[in-house]
């Protein structure tokens, strides 16, 4: 008995002296997985929340403009004016209310019932007959919704031009006819670019938010102190903490991609391995950020707040997912270079809508990995100084 005990003692000392021990790591991973599996909020955040987000972005949020309500003031009684009015009524993109006097419509613009109106002036026939020169119609739009306003303006002009090109018999033939084609998303359906972008949001939630929360919880409940007082090294503790959430994030990505392709009919023009590699590399900065937040905050409430402001919101607004980066002011554009989601969203849009394009992926992958490395180094430093 005594000898057995002695031998065991030597064994323990040997294992403990090692800085990295696979069995300790596996024990930590097992513990973390059990905890994640038993905590209903983990599964809620990893699977239910992403599904809800994807459905919202696929169905509820739409950047497309359909059946915009506008007014049409028909001041002229001429046959051509009537024909143009009919052309307006026929387009599926506009919902037209007719009036004889612009005063009838001003109130409706103010109340928001109409988004703008088009005036066909009294001398319309006369202007039409003139060779070139004066504009044919006047367009008034509601500038408080800039996107819709510019849509109304350009679409109203489009209707007039089309009508003139086709129906206007005595109209001068245009020398060139512009026929635009949109690549990658021929119908300009916003869903097709939103759904891949939403995957980046989901991954940010799992990688950054969930990680920040679970690590902060260990500090809050005092278990981190207990584990730090065992022979386990900081590297083992951190890897043990993160690997289950890495796997969870990848599973969630697969589920989200499945939903995107089979339910929302978003094409996957690139390959699945490319998508998985991109997601895996994006998990590096996402997890690193979560880890850094929790080692600084060490309190679940604060960690959630910081993760929201430094992870979720930038991924939402500064990644090019919802708002195009090119239309941002220069200094905000500069900030977006620090947001890892920016590189992931660009890559996701490419892999879904364009295909496997190495020249796009490679710089993005490298940048994400570099940002991730910085986060990890900072987090390691903050954790080593542990209890100070």
């Amino acid at each position, binding site marked *: 008995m005594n000898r057995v*005990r002695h031998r*065991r*003692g030597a*064994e*323990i*000392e*040997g*294992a*403990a*002296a090692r*800085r990295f*021990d696979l*069995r*300790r790591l*596996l*024990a*930590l991973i*097992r*513990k973390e997985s*059990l*905890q994640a599996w*038993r*905590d209903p909020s983990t599964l809620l955040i990893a699977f239910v929340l992403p599904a809800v987000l994807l459905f919202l972005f696929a169905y509820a949020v739409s950047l497309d403009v359909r059946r915009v309500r506008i007014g049409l003031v028909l001041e002229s009684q001429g046959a051509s004016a009537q024909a143009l009015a009919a052309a307006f009524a026929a387009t599926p993109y506009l919902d037209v209310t007719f009036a004889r006097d612009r005063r009838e419509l001003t109130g409706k613009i103010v109340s928001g019932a109409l988004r703008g109106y088009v005036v066909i002036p009294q001398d319309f026939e006369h202007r039409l007959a003139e060779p070139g020169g004066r504009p044919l119609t006047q367009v008034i739009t509601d500038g408080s919704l800039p996107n819709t306003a510019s849509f109304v303006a350009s679409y109203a002009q489009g209707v007039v031009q089309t009508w003139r090109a086709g129906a206007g018999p005595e109209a001068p033939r245009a020398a060139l006819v512009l026929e635009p084609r949109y690549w990658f998303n021929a119908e300009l359906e916003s869903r097709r670019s939103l759904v891949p972008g939403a995957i980046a949001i989901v991954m940010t939630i799992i990688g950054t938010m969930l990680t920040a929360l679970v690590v902060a919880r260990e500090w809050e*409940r*005092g*278990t981190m*102190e*207990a*584990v*730090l*007082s*065992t*022979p*386990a090294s900081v590297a083992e503790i951190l890897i043990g903490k993160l690997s289950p959430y890495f796997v969870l994030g990848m599973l969630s990505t697969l589920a989200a991609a499945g939903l995107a392709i089979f339910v929302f009919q978003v094409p996957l023009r690139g390959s699945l391995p490319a998508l998985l590699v991109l997601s895996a590399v994006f998990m590096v900065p996402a997890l690193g950020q979560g880890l850094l937040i929790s080692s600084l905050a060490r309190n679940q409430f604060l960690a959630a707040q910081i993760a929201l402001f430094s992870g979720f919101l930038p991924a939402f607004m500064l990644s090019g997912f919802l708002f195009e980066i090119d239309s941002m002011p220069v200094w905000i554009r500069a900030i977006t270079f620090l947001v890892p989601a920016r590189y992931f969203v660009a890559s996701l849009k490419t892999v879904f809508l364009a295909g496997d394009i190495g020249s796009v992926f490679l710089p993005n992958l490298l940048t994400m990995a570099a940002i991730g490395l910085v986060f990890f180094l900072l987090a390691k430093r903050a954790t080593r100084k*542990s*209890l*100070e």
Partner: protein
Amino acid sequence: MRPSDAPAAAAPRAGTEDAVVIDGVSKRFGAVWALRDLRARIRYGRLTGLVGPDGAGKTTLMRILTGLLAPDAGRAAVAGFDTVADKEAIPVATGYMPQRFGLYEDLSVMENLRLYARLRGMDAERNADLFAELLAFTRLAPFTQRLAGKLSGGMKQKLGLACALMARPKVLLLDEPGVGVDPVSRQDLWRMVQALTDDGMAVVWSTAYLDEAERCGSVLLLNRGELAFDGPPADLTGRLRERSFRLEGLGARRRAVLAEALDLAGVGDGVIQGAGVRVVLRAGAEAAPIRALAAREGARLAPAPARFEDAFIDLLGGGPGGTSALAEGMPPVDLASDVAVSCRNLTKRFGDFIAADNVSFEVRKGEIFGLLGPNGAGKSTTFKMLCGLLKPTRGEAHVVGLDLRRATGAAKSRLGYMAQKFSLYGLLSVRQNLEFAAGVYGLEGAARRERIGEMIAIFDLGAWLEAPPQTLPLGHKQRLALACALMHRPPVLFLDEPTSGVDPITRREFWTHINGLARKGVTVMVTTHFMDEAEYCDRVAMLYRARLIALDTPDALKRGAASAARPDPTMEDAFIRLVEAEDEAAA
């Protein structure tokens, strides 16, 4: 438990006499010195108490010994390893149980054990004998599949201990293992630790309860980061021999006698103990004045065994005087009825869980009434129903004759409430906190200014007026909370754990005020887990598992627990006795 039941400790390293050597250790956080030039040695085979009030530096020292913190100056060695240079070896040689045990609440007992075993390089399968040994030792074998979060405080503590014992450490460090644990489980833990030290292990037990120090083989007494005493507790209490007395049989006069005794020049410290008063004379003081006081009151003056807490206060130069400036300035309370607080069949359910079950009692005007019980026994629930913060599921409660269910607002304006942890507004300054309390109770104009000024003077808050409450020392925080609760001079005062973590001198001062208030006719309701504080109460209600299991004077409760083996039981003994009787009846 026989010593042989304990898992054997590894033999100490040859050539090292001391388990722990602390050599000139200092540590500061910002401007605050947590530890200052600490020097001490801890021996193998002995239970060493690391004793001191909150903020004394106990946890900081524990963390330095486990290598989790590095000292700013000086060095520490545990089991022969330097805590900085040989940091990697510390976790192998020591077992550490942090405050709140460091358990994963969503893992089962067995999963927690396995995790800590593997982290220490052991395997449950290959070390089945060790697991069986630990489970038998902690008596956790029947609960291996239960989630740690669903264990009682006492069982959590035993599981935490089992996890810390996993690697058969030479030195076991326990950080406040007694907090949140009922007296019965604590008793169990003492027995287990005894068995471990008998096998040669060095055990360090940190605690803010000074009475726990008396059970330790040796004590390191910390006060504000400095070592106040190092040695066997009897050495310290021995200094009070011939200076510690009990005035017996005072009855209702005891509060007045205590106040008078404390104001005598030769008396350094005194507390109420049942129907009598215990006093400690200053070193070298004459016993004649106290003899005269006893003779005048017709009380018997008997020598009494000194307690560790008395010795600590003596070490710090004695406690406060006996007169409460707060109570002096207050007019006597005038109530129509003699019953200040009453409740009948008070019951509270939270879903399936019954937090309070048919609790009934009456509290007379001017009485100090204590609610005692382990965590989760229903103290706080009962308390909250009595001051209108919680609606009872069944039964009724009255405060100064007002029904709490119908006249909640009116009843609340007649009571003062001091919540656990003092609940002050952290974003307001001390002055603004006082102004808020005055405003919320409807004080205005000159009366308001005058009352606030009075509180500032009585509680000595002048230096802190513009500071936020969290920067105050704990004792001052407690004073501020009491000032806020008393702003409207309520006839009934509710105090929920008013002295947890506060140093003993501040506790004495606090009770001086409470005694003074009671003498003016203020009714005081108090919950506490300091068993000796229950002695200040006129009557004590003991709650256990949501039910009222005893209600009597402290003396009567203690008498009930007296036996041939223990002729002079403490309140804690009485409590353990009652709980055991209750458990037997239930079984």
